[in-house]
């Protein structure tokens, strides 16, 4: 029976190996201890980001800091899979030391215990270097969880040449905007004033904020959700009207079709954030010199309200081995004037560092915009943003709730206003399903 006992032993051995492996002998290192760097010790930190131009800033840091090197890894933009990657990495204990986290995503990373509190590392001393509302985006309870990088004050990009051809003055109010939309449709049956992208509810969120809506807040330990307030419904119904009257397109933005429309004049305006200039110049290069920037259309004549779209921070992720050095890199990246200039050249947005605008690369005429100093418009816009806007830990799901409804509305089923109401209920449910306390209104 020797053969069978050999086999028996083989079998037992295999099972033993298998169960050993299954018991998790290896395992990631859940409590990777953060340590202090010893003087002269060479370390490398990883940084995940998608912002164009950040590689040049990282190169600059690396040339100046031979002992503290940063390895940049490009990931898809947050809502296009970047955050999913970061969440997966955190769950597998393989997170990078630093990552790009937009303001609206900070609470969701906090919920997954993914961010390092920078207050014990002395972050508060640098509070004064940054625009306060952007600093506040990273503050929760008693801790500081992110270093602000940039924001996106909004204005209106418009084709000045086409407006002149059609005899339209840049609209100052949303009523005038609607009028302009009608005129455009009359003058050129192939042209539209803009598209309402059903898959980009972040844009809609900013428009609601401009109208004065406050969707989210906290009261004690309870989260508050108030998406279907009258101001938001007003904005939704406005775009519903435009859609019903055929005044706007409902195609996705940031896509070939949209770029082609921008290039060919089939879309004449884009209400967008400051970082949109790089999007236009990069994807519609043949229209150089034809665009201008004007303040956002207003709900009340003579108003100056603007809104913020996007904006992100640099955060240190849980598991980072050298959080102090990571924080120092983050601070340098977002306040050093040379770094800021490199980031501006890449089109990263409006610097969060105080006083960064004057004398920076932003403070100049833009050839693409026919020599206009576009950032004067954005600087004013930046002063007129409602700074008290807060986010919830399920922003991704909230955006998707809106997207689903908007997509149906664009296909003719329902309205944008109905989508907002439906999204309100779903968002409350999302938060409750996470085990959080929620209140409506």
């Amino acid at each position, binding site marked *: 029976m020797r053969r*069978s006992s050999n086999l028996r032993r083989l079998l037992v051995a295999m099972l033993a190996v298998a169960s050993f492996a*299954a018991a998790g002998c290896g395992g990631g290192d859940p409590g990777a201890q953060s340590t202090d760097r010893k003087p002269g010790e060479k370390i490398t930190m990883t940084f995940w980001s998608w912002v164009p131009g950040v590689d040049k800033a990282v190169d600059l840091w690396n040339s100046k800091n031979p002992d503290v090197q940063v390895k940049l890894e490009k990931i898809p933009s947050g809502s296009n899979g970047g955050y999913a990657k970061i969440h997966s990495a955190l769950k597998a204990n393989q997170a990078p030391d630093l990552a790009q986290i937009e303001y609206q995503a900070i609470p*969701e990373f906090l*919920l*997954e215990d993914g961010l390092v509190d920078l207050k014990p590392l002395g972050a508060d001393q640098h509070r004064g270097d940054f625009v306060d509302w952007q600093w506040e985006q990273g503050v929760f309870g008693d801790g500081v969880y992110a270093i602000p990088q940039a924001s996106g004050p909004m204005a209106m990009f418009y084709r000045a040449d086409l407006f002149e051809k059609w005899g339209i003055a840049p609209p100052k109010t949303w009523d005038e905007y609607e009028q302009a939309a009608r005129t455009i449709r009359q003058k050129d049956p192939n042209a539209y004033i803009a598209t309402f992208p059903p898959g980009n509810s972040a844009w809609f969120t900013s428009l609601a904020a401009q109208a004065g809506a406050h969707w989210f807040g906290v009261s004690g330990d309870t989260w508050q959700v108030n998406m279907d307030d009258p101001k938001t419904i007003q904005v939704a119904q406005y775009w519903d009207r435009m859609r019903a009257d055929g005044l706007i397109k409902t195609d*996705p933005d940031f*896509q070939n079709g949209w770029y*082609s429309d921008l290039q060919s004049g089939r879309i004449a305006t884009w209400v967008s954030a400051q970082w949109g200039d790089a999007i236009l110049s990069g994807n519609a290069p043949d229209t150089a010199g034809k665009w201008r920037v004007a303040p956002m259309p207003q709900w009340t004549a003579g108003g100056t309200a603007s809104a913020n779209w996007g904006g992100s921070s640099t955060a240190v992720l849980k598991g980072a081995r050298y959080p102090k050095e990571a924080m120092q890199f983050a601070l340098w990246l977002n306040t050093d004037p040379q770094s800021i200039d490199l980031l501006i050249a890449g089109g990263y947005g409006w610097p969060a560092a105080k006083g960064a605008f004057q004398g920076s690369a932003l403070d100049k005429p833009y050839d693409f915009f026919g020599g206009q100093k576009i950032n004067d418009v954005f600087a004013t816009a930046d002063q007129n943003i409602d700074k008290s806007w807060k986010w919830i*830990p399920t922003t991704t799901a909230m955006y998707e709730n809106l997207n689903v409804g908007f997509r149906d509305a664009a*296909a003719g089923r329902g309205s944008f206003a109905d989508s907002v109401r439906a999204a309100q209920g779903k968002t409350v449910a999302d938060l409750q399903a996470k085990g959080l306390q929620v209140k409506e209104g």
Partner: protein
Amino acid sequence: MTTTATAPARAESTRPRRAAPRRRRGRLAPWGFLAPFGVLFLLLFLAPIGYAVYQSLIRIDRSGPLGLGRAREVFGGLENYSRAVSDPAFVASIGRVLLFAAVQVPLMIVLSTVLALLLDSASARWPGLFRGVYFLPYGVPGVIATILWGFLYVPGVSPIVDGLTAMGLPVDLLGGGSVLWSIANIVTWAFAGYNMLVIIAQLKAIPGELLEAATVDGAGPLRTVWHVKLPLVRPALVLTTVFTIIGTLQLFAEPLVLKPLSTAISFTYTPNLSAFNEAFNNNNYGLAAAESVLLALGAFVLSFGFLRLTGRRRR
């Protein structure tokens, strides 16, 4: 060993006694051969299923200021399942893939069978060439096929769409009503040749005498197909249908790659997309696990049921 050189493929042994030698080998030999696959099957197949079921029964309890403090996993019962089935978007996604399967599976099988029969018929010239061409798309990964067809669907880039528009037939292949069928087109394009090959293999195995007998009896090509060929390729048809059912219910890569191009595709377009989204974008692992389990059960039931149905009729 001398016997190997003269071993034809004989299915039956002519030796009278087979039981006695087996006892000598020991009864553990088969387990030894089964073990490597078996252990991995256990660890990497059964264990994840078990883990998914476990995960689907978990709920997260939070404490601390604003709930951002400690999180604990507690037993939540069927909470995730009830959440999944009471979400109209998820239920709609199930309906959508069922509709997709109901249309796409017959379409695929019919097309593959017709192609196989055409290539097998005497009227076809250059069958080998055409076979190669039809099988070509199988070598293209689904995502890449979707990227390619995506370019062929976008107006302004696609020669097809632009051509039709120029002829006065503006067509929107990525809109709400049509994108599902645009996806069906991609899946058909990718797998029809593969399924066709499976059926051809079965066709080639039909004994020539049967076909000759049919001709002698006066049956034309169409009657031969209906009464001789089709019944005899039944096993291949069953096999390809089952795999097509399982594949279509799992639809994931095609809608995901087309998503940025189409306003009609959201993360709840198919159940798989929904589970993926809940897990990786929303960090709702319990809900994602429940949705995966529901999807797996559905696919299992449908394919098993189909096998049962076709098996029973044969007897």
